[in-house]
């Protein structure tokens, strides 16, 4: 097995035992990047010399017995995360060449935890997209079949972990942008509770919806990573003082006695029947492990996309107002089509005469959606649903139909509206392309999600499969 095919947990153990060095591990990742990046278009910026320099530093610390949570582990960052001195483009020509004078809080934390930063990954520009096709630097390709999309907007980050270019990578999830690409690439993608991880320094898409998460091979790795990034931040007023628990503590507890809900609104006509079959298999597995599967209803699910596509573009239109080319970047002519669309849609729904009918109304329906989940969690501990109604589509297939693109968020977006955590876990392949489920829980229930995912993973090691592309 190649070094970069290990999990973080395995790599950490072996680094400690000095079976190899961080430089070895980093080189393995860099080699993979050199081999595959041109074809798959995963990285916008690769920091080769900086990464090796930091790997060397990590090795020194390891040699004196220092133990930091991610010491010597090479990771990638979605190019939405401000990195001091390193170009941060948001996947857009508007920010091409922009070099932030500061690090995002999460980047500071990851550095302090000893992680080695390999580079910045490709994404739909401004995180606007579900496929990776809206990047101004070309789409990232799905490594399982390069004719297909890897999902978005955190397309590069998902593929970097799927192909072993990095041991973990960061992402953002505003309407499914971690969970969808995770399910399309056979990786584990965590969208934490809104506010669990600081948004400071991460280029804002929709302020009340953006969740800062990450991709890993396994749920255990995901827990190790969240341990570093979670916590209240004095620079982000929307991070509550909720204690950061030990996220690996409950991993092995299993699912016996847990009540898992299946919402009937997620098993509608539009759901691909092969996906439905795979998801049902997963439910049968959990039942066999002692979980109770309970039918529940989330009645306002059908209004979630409409609600999301009013609130999100409204906040986007305001958050993107600062890009005027005066203090940094290019002027507004450099915006891509999707960005322009969303800015205009948002501006319209906030404008005089329309605010009440659209934005205010959407904020009220949001309350109803939140209540649906609150009611459901009184009956069940967790909820499991498919992540996407369809399998990954061919590159180019949906670019001319923005609405069709938006509808791919139908299972993912309600979770963002409610601010809940969601963990996307691989459950297999259909015609060579990956499929996943999302495990949902109440606010700040991430350990429960890791526990439920871990139970599945120990019996189905999908992460041991690697794409041939």
């Amino acid at each position, binding site marked *: 097995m190649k070094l970069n095919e290990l999990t973080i947990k395995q790599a950490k153990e072996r680094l400690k035992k000095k079976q190899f060095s961080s430089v070895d591990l980093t080189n393995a990742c860099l080699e993979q990047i050199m081999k595959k990046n041109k074809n798959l278009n995963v990285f916008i910026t690769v920091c080769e010399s900086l990464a090796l320099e930091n790997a060397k530093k990590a090795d020194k610390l390891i040699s004196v017995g220092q133990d930091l949570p991610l010491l010597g582990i090479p990771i990638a960052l979605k190019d939405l995360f401000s990195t001091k001195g390193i170009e941060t483009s948001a996947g857009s020509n508007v920010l091409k060449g922009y070099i932030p004078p500061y690090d995002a809080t999460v980047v500071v934390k990851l550095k302090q935890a000893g992680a080695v930063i390999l580079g910045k990954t490709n994404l739909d520009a401004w995180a606007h997209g579900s496929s990776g096709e809206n990047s101004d630097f070309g789409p990232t390709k799905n490594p399982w079949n390069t004719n297909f999309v890897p999902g978005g907007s955190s397309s590069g980050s998902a593929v970097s972990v799927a192909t072993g270019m990095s041991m973990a990578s960061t992402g953002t999830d505003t309407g499914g942008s971690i969970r969808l690409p995770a399910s399309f690439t056979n990786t584990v993608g965590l969208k934490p509770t809104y506010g669990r991880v600081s948004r400071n320094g991460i280029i804002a898409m929709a*302020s009340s919806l953006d969740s800062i998460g990450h991709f890993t091979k396994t749920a255990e790795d995901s827990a190790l990573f969240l341990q570093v990034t979670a916590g209240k931040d004095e620079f982000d007023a929307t991070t509550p003082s909720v204690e950061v628990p030990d996220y690996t503590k409950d991993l092995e507890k299993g699912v016996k006695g847990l009540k898992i809900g299946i919402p009937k609104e997620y098993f509608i006509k539009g759901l691909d029947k092969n996906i439905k079959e795979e998801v049902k298999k997963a439910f049968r597995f959990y039942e066999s492990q002692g979980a109770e599967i309970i039918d529940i209803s989330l009645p306002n699910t059908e209004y979630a996309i409409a609600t999301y596509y009013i609130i999100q573009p409204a906040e986007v239109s305001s958050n993107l107002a600062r890009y005027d080319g005066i203090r940094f970047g290019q002027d507004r002519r450099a915006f891509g089509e999707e960005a322009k669309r969303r800015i205009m849609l948002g501006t319209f729904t906030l404008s005089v005469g329309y605010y009440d009918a659209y934005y205010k109304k959407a904020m009220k329906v949001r309350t109803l959606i939140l209540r649906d989940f609150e009611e459901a969690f009184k009956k069940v501990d967790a909820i499991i649903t498919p992540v996407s109604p369809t399998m990954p589509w061919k590159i180019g297939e949906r670019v001319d139909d923005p609405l069709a693109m938006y509808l791919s968020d139908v299972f993912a977006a309600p979770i963002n509206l409610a601010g809940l955590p969601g963990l996307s876990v691989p459950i297999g392949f259909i015609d060579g392309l990956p499929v996943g489920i999302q495990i949902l829980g109440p606010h700040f229930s991430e350990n429960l999600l890791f526990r439920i995912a871990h139970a599945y993973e120990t019996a189905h090691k999908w992460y041991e499969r690697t794409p041939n592309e």
Partner: protein
Amino acid sequence: MLTKQRISGMRERLMNSRTIIGLEVHVELKTKRKMFCNCSADYFGHKPNTHTCPVCLGLPGALPVPNKQALEWCIAIGLALNCEIPLFSKFDRKNYFYPDLPKGYQISQYDQPFCLRGKIEVNGKKFGITRVHMEEDTGKLSHGKVENEDVSLIDFNRSGVPLVEIVTDPDFNNAIDVKAYLQKLQQIVRYLGVSDADMEKGQMRLEPNISISLDVNSTKLPNYKVEVKNINSFGFVEKAINFELKRQQEILEKGEKPVQETRGWDESKQKTVSQRLKEEANDYRYFPEPDIPPLRWTDNEIADIKEKMKGKMPEDKIKELINLEVSQSNAVLLVANMNKLDLFNELYSKTKFIKGGTPIPTANQISNYLINKVVEHQTIPQIMHSIQSSLTLSSVSNDELKEVIRKVLKNNPKIMQDYKAGKKSVIQFAIGQVMYIIRKKIDTEILKKLITDELK
């Protein structure tokens, strides 16, 4: 068709027209930290763009976190203006594009401001305060030519500094009351210790909204208003308002309606000049600021803020002075000048240490001296000494002096003539005349001032 009859009829109506003025004042708070970031708020006079950070520069990814002190001080201002303080409040985004606005929106307050429905008494009249709210300041724009091209230049040091906006009901109808209101407001914020409110430094900015209604009998507001900006000193206030009123009246006399717009006072041209058309009023697309959770006060917190204000207000200071037997008019004048009040307090506290032999000035005597004299660049002991010397001079009241002065001027009309012709030396003659009548040793400085005042 405007017939002569119609025009003269209009003029008659205008004589009885209503002037409607509402005031928007922005006060810069003298906090240490800016409103939403950790930069120092003490930006004035520093090198450009040296007091910025990702937040106040509007860099990608930066987030706002409110300054607690600023919020408390805004409440204090609201309480000083007798406002209601709703316990629940929030920030909103005001979206518009301008180069000095780095985020493309200003964090302000829209429908749930910190303070509402207050009132203030000035010149014996009551004026309503519509609201008092918090917002952040913008960067500073300057204009010039670089390589033959007209450019605008931006310094973001001021961006993010806390501003309190105080809006009055459209209750004012003349420039004198407006000036008095401004002076009182300036005193209030200075005595609360929340702002230095120096107009020349932009720490207190006034924007009157002015319109005229021809319909005297109704209380309906006219269907237009003109906002006037760039009034940077108390001196300009009266001039700007009076100019604008005259300008609008002339337009109305022609049977036209003044354009709803923003105008700027141009001191060099001594007139208001059109700036930007207010049009249908910019669509600011206000919505609740998602990056800042709302604020909820408790009654105890508001009571604490009120408690801290006790004894600090100008009225309190005036009462204190009156208790020391300073005359009402002196007390008002002293309080109007914070520096002089500080001097008074220092001097007064020293009177108990005066050794036997030298005269002990009363509070009122100290106040008299400070009001009438220029005392900059003098030390406390120097001032005290001067006061004591002046006490050996006869104490004739200002009113008595004024009576004599008026008599002298009446009997000697040439004094007035010569003064108006520019012969300042005639004042010495007048002083001599007064002294001759009174036949007591009088402080010639005070006399000179009173005579000059009468001549003006």
